[in-house]
């Protein structure tokens, strides 16, 4: 396959997200402007100007009309996807790390970093249908985990919130009361910072990637470990194919060590693993730095990766990909 290279960002990529129809791809980077691209040919549709710091993550509503972005400038912004206009700004006392719309787009879960005397927190905000009625108040604030919470997503039926971060423990919280429901087993769990978390298409299980050079597949309801995928570099990003039983891990050595070694030592490939057999299927090379973001198109026929090198690479699979046998 010949990937499409999109060079819209001047700084390392941080997050990638497809809309539900899979025709738009949203990219966030450490430069201040999230960008939207057409997912078929990689043409740039527009940019969202207004943030004043690195943008760590984003989410798009099911109808592809609203975009929510969380940034290191201590704000979370709501955008009109079509025009790039800012609709609302939530202000926090510390950088916002992760954002996720609930099913139905009526709620959003936002995590904020520890900063100055503030500890990290998970905020639940109600998203008004009409942006003029939007308010600043949080429905719920959960505190407890040590260190950054790198990702928090909604569980089935918005009843739970799944969080993971620097303390390497996955937690499931009640989204109504904020009570801690489950905590991942320390024995089988990750040993280092969890960098990424992604749900399967049906939400029944989710995948976490960690700096301990592994990715793990968990059951969403019981929080039991299902599978482990071991690789030889820190995992920064994970994605799951909605079509085939494949998982993709992206990563590479620490960005600060990149210039001191041969490019082969970095292992900046996106590694494909068989979800069930836990065996490596192959690698897709191309980035000149660690992969920070991965996303699968909802149709499963293409995926994109964003790297420390500032490029988004959009890969449409060759037909033979779909017949790969182990």
């Amino acid at each position, binding site marked *: *396959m*010949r990937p499409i290279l999109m060079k819209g960002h001047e700084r390392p990529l941080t997050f990638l997200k497809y809309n539900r*129809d*899979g*025709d738009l791809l949203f990219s966030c980077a450490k430069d201040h402007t999230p*960008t939207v691209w057409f997912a078929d040919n*990689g043409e740039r549709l527009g940019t*969202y100007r207004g943030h004043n710091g690195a943008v760590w993550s984003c989410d798009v509503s099911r109808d592809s009309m609203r975009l929510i972005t969380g940034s290191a400038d201590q704000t979370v912004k709501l955008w009109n996807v079509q025009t790039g206009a800012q609709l609302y700004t939530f202000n926090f006392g510390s950088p916002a790390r992760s954002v996720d719309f609930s099913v139905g787009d009526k709620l959003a879960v936002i995590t904020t970093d520890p900063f100055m005397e503030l500890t990290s927190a998970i905020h639940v905000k109600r998203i008004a249908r009409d942006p003029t009625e939007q308010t600043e108040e949080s429905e719920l604030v959960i505190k407890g985990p040590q260190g950054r919470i790198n990702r928090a997503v909604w569980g089935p039926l918005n009843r739970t919130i799944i969080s993971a971060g620097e303390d390497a423990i996955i937690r499931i919280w009640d989204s109504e009361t904020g009570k801690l429901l489950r905590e991942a087993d320390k024995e089988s769990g990750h040993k280092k910072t969890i960098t990424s978390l992604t749900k399967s298409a049906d939400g029944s299980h989710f995948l976490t990637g960690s700096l301990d050079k592994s990715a793990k597949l968990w059951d969403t309801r019981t929080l039991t470990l299902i599978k482990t995928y071991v690789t030889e570099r820190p995992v920064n990003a994970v994605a799951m194919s909605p079509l085939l039983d494949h998982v993709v891990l992206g990563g590479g050595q620490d960005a600060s060590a990149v210039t001191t070694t041969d490019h082969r030592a970095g292992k900046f*490939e996106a590694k494909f693993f068989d979800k069930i057999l836990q065996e490596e299927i192959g690698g897709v090379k191309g980035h000149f730095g660690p992969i920070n973001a991965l996303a699968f198109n909802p149709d499963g026929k293409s995926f994109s990766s964003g790297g420390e090198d500032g490029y988004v690479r959009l890969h449409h699979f060759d037909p033979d990909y779909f017949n790969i046998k182990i």
Partner: protein
Amino acid sequence: MAFDKNEPSKLRWGELEEDDDLDFLLPPKEVIGPDENGIKKVIEYRFNDEGNKVKITTTTRVRKLAKARLSKRALERRNWDKFGDAVREDVGSRLTMVSTEEILLERPRAPGTKPEEAKASGDGLAQLSKGGAVLMVCRTCGKKGDHWTSKCPYKDLAAPVESFVDKPAAAETSAAAPGAGKGAYVPPSMRAGAERTTGSDMRRRNDENSVRVTNLSEDTREADLHELFRPFGAVTRVYVAMDQKTGTSRGFGFVNFVNREDAQRAINKLNGYGYDNLILRVEWATPRTN
């Protein structure tokens, strides 16, 4: 001109080229359907080899394929106006490019094969590696079985090899080196403290069970040779000599085997083997002393 106008359809055989078709003499192609069952008939006429006119009826069933699933909303979004920085985008800015490089999903091993160790428990290579003697040991980083020294990705990180460093200590002790006066030049490799055997050692290692293949076709690449020789046994190195200037194959190469017997079998079998319409010559790379 007037003549042309009067008889435009008449065949003027003198103007026809020899391999020209006489297709225009035939009745036009006829397409019937597709009917409600999706049956479509195409009737064509053409000349067969003997120059007789034949009628060919092709009946096909037409089925509507599920169109590339694109929702109405997605199509609408396709026509959205650009906004933000994308509005004033220069034509020449080339933010989106198609890679010039063909990127493949690189398999860790050939499709359809099991991991090497699991498959070939009787394989010599597997046995060797199980015995603890890994053939592939990187002298830079000490990693076993991952890569060769020359391909070490960590070589820039490793401390420089001692023999390359001109140490004053080495110069002092060189007085004691054989046949060296105080001022006489001693090549670095002969100096005391230098590793003397590395060079020849390396060469010898590469020559073990080495098979020379000559009379290769220009298109033969290392992968082809590997494919050709792999069935005889574990292969450690495949090399095809390339011309530095033209980049084409020079028509010979070397294959190293783990086991001598495998190499011998390969020679017996492949010497005189027809490969790419050339007859291969396969022999031991170095004249054996025994």
